[in-house]
């Protein structure tokens, strides 16, 4: 997928004008955001589980080479096969080769962010395969030829009416308006696709080194039909999905559903281990795991290692004032919201992802709700430092920062300037207590007034009261 992150500002402005999108985004607050708060409050051990979740991931990342080797050995023991891919192209090649070896014409897919990351669908389609997304949200955006706008709800940016129109366009027939009937129609159509499929591709929420299992989590049951009906099952997952034991998976699973949608537990959590066993009446004959690196093995050695704890719950975006106003598509690539602002520049480069780490007020809500306590604002700040080092920051902002830096390092000068600035702003306000415009603050005062400083500077008041 081609990144359009450089157009963030323009797209975010467009999003604010888009009434349908704003309606859809407003639903996240009452739905997932409130749901997470309720679910966390219902489980007294929730905060302790977050500490444990972080510790599990930190431990695994510090021993990632060893856990990956253990995982591979268990998969092979169970009759499966592991394929290693250094980058997106290598992963796409492996999946296509596996589909060809299986004589596949038709492929079903259950939701996988890694497949989005490597642009798998477009590649398989270009090579003559029919690829059908089975998660309802992914199916909807596949019909619209759009990238996902959210980690958990890829079609969260659409209203019911837009989906009604879409289904008429693609399925024909009379226009359906009831959500239940829309779900029923998708169920009927996709049922046929499941039965026709030669290969089923799923992602994995976790890979378990102890057993060689891949864990999928869905509410729809589409992962189970995707991997249970075709002859070949391919799991595609990135390196950091591996964790040590089944017990570790359960600790993280207790965090996942609650953080994502406020559910106590998602409807379906499935551990698959190898292909069909002797005597089994169903299950695939072949089981493959494609392990994707795509820069992660290098990331493990940097400050961005913490980002590899991410379990893709979406809580950071559900609580982000910027995401909730701009929507996912403004971010211009596969990963969106605060986690996307940290992750996307890793894949497309900070030059192409420049606006993303700046699309934050550093209010800190993302870090507050992250189930594995990723310091997202701090990691975004690291990208901002990188922007400065690479001279990507525009000259005015660069000089502004230089000037501020020069003052901040000279306390006497800083205090003097602050005192003068406060006095000047107060004079400008001419007793009204607020300013409709202020020098260098046009962006801020364009939509609101700037309150004029009252009394002395903080340092002056501090000194007076201490005396």
């Amino acid at each position, binding site marked *: 997928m081609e990144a359009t992150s450089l157009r963030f500002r323009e797209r975010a402005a467009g999003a604010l004008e888009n009434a349908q999108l704003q309606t859809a985004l407003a639903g996240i607050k009452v739905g997932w955001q409130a749901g997470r708060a309720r679910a966390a409050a219902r489980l*007294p*051990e929730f905060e*302790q589980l977050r500490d*444990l979740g972080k510790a599990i991931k930190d431990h695994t990342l510090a*021993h990632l*080479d*060893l856990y990956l080797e253990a995982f591979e050995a268990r998969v092979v023991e169970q009759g499966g096969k592991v394929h*290693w*891919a250094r980058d997106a192209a*290598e992963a796409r090649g492996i999946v296509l080769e596996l589909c060809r070896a299986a004589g596949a014409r038709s492929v079903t897919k259950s939701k996988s962010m890694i497949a989005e990351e490597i642009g798998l669908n477009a590649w398989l389609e270009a090579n003559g395969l029919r690829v059908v997304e089975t998660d*309802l949200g992914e199916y909807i955006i596949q019909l619209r030829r759009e990238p996902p706008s959210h980690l958990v*709800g*890829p079609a969260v940016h659409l*209203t*019911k009416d837009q*989906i009604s129109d879409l289904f008429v366009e693609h399925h024909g027939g009379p226009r359906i308006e009831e*959500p*239940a009937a829309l*779900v029923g129609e*998708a*169920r009927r159509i996709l*049922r046929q696709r499941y039965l026709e499929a030669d290969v089923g591709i799923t992602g994995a929420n976790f890979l378990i*080194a*102890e*057993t060689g*299992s891949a864990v999928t989590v869905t*509410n*729809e*049951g*589409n992962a*189970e*039909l995707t991997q*249970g009906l075709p002859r070949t099952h391919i799991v595609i997952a990135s*390196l950091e999905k591996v964790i*040590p*034991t*089944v*017990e570790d998976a*359960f*600790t993280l*699973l207790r965090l996942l559903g609650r953080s994502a949608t406020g559910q*106590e*537990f998602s*409807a*379906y*959590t*499935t*551990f*698959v*281990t190898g292909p*069909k*066993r002797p005597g*089994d*009446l*169903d*299950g695939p004959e072949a089981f493959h795991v494609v*392990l994707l690196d795509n820069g992660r*093995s290098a*990331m493990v*050695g940097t400050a961005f290692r913490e980002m590899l704890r991410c379990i893709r719950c979406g809580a950071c975006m559900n609580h982000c004032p910027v995401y909730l106003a701009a929507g996912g598509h403004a971010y211009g690539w596969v990963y969106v919201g605060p986690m996307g602002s940290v992750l996307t520049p890793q894949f497309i480069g900070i030059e192409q992802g420049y606006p993303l780490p700046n699309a934050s007020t550093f209010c800190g809500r993302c870090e507050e709700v992250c189930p594995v306590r990723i310091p997202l604002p701090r990691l975004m700040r690291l990208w901002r430092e990188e922007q400065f080092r690479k001279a990507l920051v525009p000259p005015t902002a660069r000089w502004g920062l230089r000037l501020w830096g020069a003052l901040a390092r000279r306390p006497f000068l800083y205090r003097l300037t602050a005192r003068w600035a406060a006095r000047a702003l107060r004079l400008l306000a001419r007793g009204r207590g607020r300013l409709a415009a202020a020098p260098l603050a046009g962006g801020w005062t364009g939509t609101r007034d700037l309150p004029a400083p009252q009394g002395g500077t903080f340092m002056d008041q501090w000194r007076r009261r201490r005396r």
Partner: protein
Amino acid sequence: MSEARAAILARLRRSLPRSADEQAAAEATVHERLAAPAPNLLPARGQLDRDGRVRLFTDMARAVAAEVELLDELEAVPAAVATYLRRHNLPQRIVVAPDPLLDLARWEGQPLLRVRRGDAEPDDAVGVTLASTGIAETGTLLLTSAPERPTLLAFLPETSIVVVFADEIDGAYEQSWARLRAALGTPPRSVNLITGPSRTGDIAQQIELGAHGPRRLLVLVVDRSPPLDD
């Protein structure tokens, strides 16, 4: 592709530099953790006596739109199934997991009920299968694949009926898995944890049941476990 494998592992090791001693220690740590898996934290919520676990399981499953009925013994299952199908206006035709335990239910006691034993076919409307355990914490069923317990029975039909013995309801997921591990060693091909019927919020965040899996889930909790043969 072993070239890619070597390259990835080499880069990981460059990112995670360890001295020879540290390498030995890291290997020992990983070996230990994998050899003796232990729970990290069991929420207090599910750590109750048998009756408490059954009650919590029932409440939690009902909260996610599963129907739960408590039966005294396995012989009561066929009548409960027939009544349920009548109540939902469903045909008296079911496909049942070919599990000897479910045969003990004596389906012939319901002459109107047409019973086929085996795996689900695309046109089957009602599947009946047996859960290995239940988990009180979240009202979750744990199903394990085996020749006598095909996985698709709980996913393909629109109505899923699952039998679970009250004795097999644990407090937490880890407690069920520990018993599974003790009994089987390595896990079966598929372990399915099921919490309520299939659902989606993908159309305007409104929850609808029956997205791909079952629209309805009936859980029959059987109080008395059948006596073991041997």
